[in-house]
C-alpha cells in the first residue's frame, strides 16, 4: 500500500472523494497533536467526569445472576451517562477537538438518535452550530429524540434517499461535508468511515474498558472471563473490548442484530451474513449482493440497522480475537423486558441484543466465572416502539 495509515489488517483505509482528503488529513494531524496534549486531556477528563457523569458504574446484577444460575453478571452502566448512552464519550472528545481546530459547526448522522442527541448536546455546551442527518424512517421510529435534538438547538434533516435509515444518513452527512468543509467538522458517531475516524472514536470510547478493568480489579481482584457488547458500527463494543485485547483469557463477544433472522433478508448481522467490500470510506464487511450493491438491512433497533461494521471489528473477527454472534429482534425484546423486570433497569433495544446473548451464555458457565455486559444506553426512547411490537397501541 502507498499509505498503510489507518489499516486494521486488510481493513480500514480512506476510500473517500478527493474533495475530503485534506479535511481528513488535517483532522488526523490535529488529533495526533491533541491526543498527547495535557491541557486537552485535562479539559476532556473534566467534561467526561463533571458533565457526562463518568466514571460510569459497574453494577453487579445479583438477581439476574441468581435467576440464570451460572456466571456472575456485571453491567457496565453507560446508560447512566448524561444523554443516556455511551455516545457522549466520543462526542465530547470530537467536539473539543473540532473547537481546537477552529471549527464552528458540527454535522452528524444518527440512527436511533442517541448520537444526534449527544452531538446536539455538545454543540449547545460549546456554542457550536449543529446539523443532524437522520433517516426519515428513523425520525418516525425515534420521534422523541428528534424533539430532543431540536430542543437542544440542532437542526434535524430527515434523509429521504435509499432505505431512509442510518446508512443513508451517513451518506448524506458525507455529501454535506464535501459541500462545506472549512468551518465544519463531521462528528462521526461510530468506529467506521475513513481513517482517522475509526481510531479517534475508538480512543474516545476506550474509557469504557479502561474503567471496567479498574472496577473489576477493585471488586473481584481479577479480570472478567467475557465482555459482551452490541455491535452496529461497533463503537460501544470496541470501547468495551479495547483494553482487554491483549488479555487473551478474556473472551470478547460482539452481538449483532439478526433482525428477523440471519437466514432471512431482514437482517443487519454484517459479520454473520456479509462479505468483504469498500463503502463509506472503509474496507470492511458489508451486507451486499453479488454485484456489490449495498443491501437494505433491517433490525428493530435503529442504532444497529447498518449494513457495515467498523474495520477494527472486521480485523478482530479475522484474527479470531473477538467472536461475533447474531441476536434476533425477538430475543432482544425479551431481554429488554427481562432486565426491566429483573433488575429494574430499562436498557436500550440496542444494548438488549448484548443482554440477550448474556442470558443464553451465563447459564452455560460455572458460578465462579464472570461476564461483563455493556448496557450502552437506556431504553426510555424505545418504550413506545416495544409496546407496539407487543401489540399495544401507544403513542408518545
Amino acid at each position, binding site marked *: *500500500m*502507498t*499509505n498503510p*495509515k489507518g489499516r486494521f489488517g486488510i481493513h480500514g*483505509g*480512506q*476510500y*473517500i*472523494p*478527493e*474533495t*475530503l*482528503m*485534506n*479535511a481528513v488529513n488535517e483532522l488526523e494531524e490535529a488529533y495526533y497533536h491533541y491526543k498527547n496534549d495535557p491541557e486537552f486531556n485535562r479539559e476532556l477528563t473534566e467534561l467526561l467526569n463533571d458533565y457526562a457523569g463518568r466514571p460510569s458504574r459497574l453494577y453487579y446484577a445479583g438477581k439476574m445472576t441468581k435467576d440464570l444460575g451460572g456466571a456472575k453478571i456485571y453491567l457496565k452502566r453507560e446508560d447512566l451517562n448524561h444523554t443516556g448512552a455511551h455516545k457522549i464519550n466520543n462526542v465530547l472528545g470530537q467536539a473539543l477537538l473540532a473547537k481546537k481546530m477552529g471549527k464552528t459547526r458540527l454535522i452528524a448522522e444518527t440512527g436511533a438518535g442517541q448520537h444526534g442527541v449527544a452531538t446536539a448536546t455538545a454543540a449547545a455546551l460549546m456554542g457550536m452550530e449543529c446539523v443532524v442527518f437522520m433517516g426519515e424512517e428513523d425520525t418516525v421510529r425515534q420521534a422523541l429524540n428528534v424533539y430532543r435534538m431540536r430542543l437542544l438547538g440542532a437542526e434535524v434533516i430527515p434523509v429521504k*434517499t*435509499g432505505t431512509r435509515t442510518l*446508512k*443513508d444518513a451517513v*451518506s448524506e452527512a*458525507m*455529501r454535506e461535508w*464535501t*459541500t*462545506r*468543509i472549512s468551518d465544519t467538522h463531521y462528528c462521526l458517531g461510530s468506529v467506521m468511515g475513513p481513517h482517522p475516524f475509526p481510531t479517534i472514536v475508538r480512543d474516545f470510547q476506550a474509557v469504557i474498558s479502561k474503567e471496567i478493568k479498574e472496577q473489576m480489579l477493585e471488586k473481584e481482584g481479577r479480570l472478567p472471563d467475557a465482555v459482551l457488547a452490541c455491535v452496529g458500527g461497533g463503537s460501544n463494543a470496541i470501547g468495551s473490548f479495547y483494553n482487554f485485547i491483549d488479555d487473551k483469557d478474556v473472551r470478547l463477544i460482539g452481538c449483532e442484530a439478526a433482525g428477523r433472522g440471519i437466514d432471512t433478508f431482514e437482517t443487519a448481522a454484517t459479520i454473520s451474513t456479509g*462479505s*468483504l*467490500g*469498500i*463503502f*463509506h*470510506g472503509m474496507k470492511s464487511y*458489508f451486507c*451486499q449482493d*453479488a*454485484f*456489490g*450493491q*449495498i443491501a437494505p438491512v433491517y433490525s428493530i433497533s435503529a442504532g444497529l440497522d447498518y449494513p457495515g461494521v467498523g474495520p477494527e471489528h472486521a480485523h478482530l473477527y479475522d484474527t479470531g480475537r473477538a467472536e461475533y454472534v447474531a441476536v434476533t429482534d425477538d430475543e432482544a425484546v425479551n431481554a429488554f423486558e427481562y432486565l426491566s423486570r429483573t433488575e429494574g433497569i430499562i436498557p436500550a433495544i440496542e444494548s438488549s441484543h448484548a443482554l440477550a446473548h448474556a442470558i443464553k451464555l451465563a447459564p452455560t458457565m460455572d458460578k465462579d466465572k464472570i461476564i461483563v455486559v455493556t448496557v450502552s444506553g437506556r431504553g426510555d426512547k424505545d418504550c413506545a416502539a416495544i409496546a407496539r411490537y407487543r401489540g399495544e397501541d401507544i403513542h408518545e
Partner: protein
Amino acid sequence: MSNIAKAFQNGKAFIPFITCGDPDLVTTAAAVREAVRNGADLIELGIPFSDPTAEGPVIQGANLRALSGGINTDMIFSFVRGLRSDVTVPMVFMTYANVVFSYGAEKFISTCAEIGIDGLILPDIPYEEKEEFLPLCHQYGVDLISLIAPTSQNRVGMIAREAEGFIYLVSSLGVTGERSSINTDLSDIVRTIRENTSVPVAVGFGISTPEQARAMASVSDGAIVGSAIVRLLEKHGKDAPEHIGEYVKSMKDAIRDL
C-alpha cells in the same frame, strides 16, 4: 499513448455522462449514439451503485431508476460490447470502488480492456488508495482517472504527476449537480497541473449551460456534463436520446473553437 488522448484532438473536448440502464439499456444505447453523432468526444458511462455518495439528487435518482429496472454489471458489459460494434470514441466507466471490488477487481478490469473501455473513474478512490486497483489497470491497459478538487491544494502536483488518461478536475465543493454559478478560480490549479503533467484536464461538476461549459473549457481541455443530461432522461425517458443529441450539439458548439 492512451486511447483517451484521441478525445482531446478535436478542439476542446465535450464529455457527457450517462447512467447505464436509465431507464433501460436500449435508451442508453440510443443516447450514446446521439451524443457521439452530435460531437461528444468521450463517453462517461455510469455503472449504477446503490449508495452513490459523491452524487447529488439528480444522479442518485438515475442510479435508483436503473437498479430498480434490474440492471447489473454483467448486463452492462455485454451492452458495451454491442456499442463497440460502431461507437469508436473513447469510453470510460464511472462507478464506485465496491462495484469493481466485489465483482473481482481482476475480472472487472480485464473485462473492461476486452470490451473496449479505456478508463475508470472511481470517486471514492483517492490518491492514497489507488494501489487497490492501479496494478491491475496497468496490467490490462485501462487508465485509472485521477480526480483533483478545489480543496486539493498541496496535493495537486503529487496527483498530477502520476495521472493517466485525463485529469477530472472537480469545479467546486460538494456533490454532482447543476449549479447556477461556479465561482471557483480554477486557473491556479490548472497551472500547477500543467507544470507537472501533459495529461489533458477536463472540468466537471455543476456545468449545465453552454456559457458555463465555455468558461470551464477556456481554462482547461474540456467540459464534463452529467446531471443536466440525466435530467433530460428523467424528463423524457425513452424519448430522451434526440433531446440529448441537440443538447450535446449546443454544448460542443460552444467550446469547440476556444
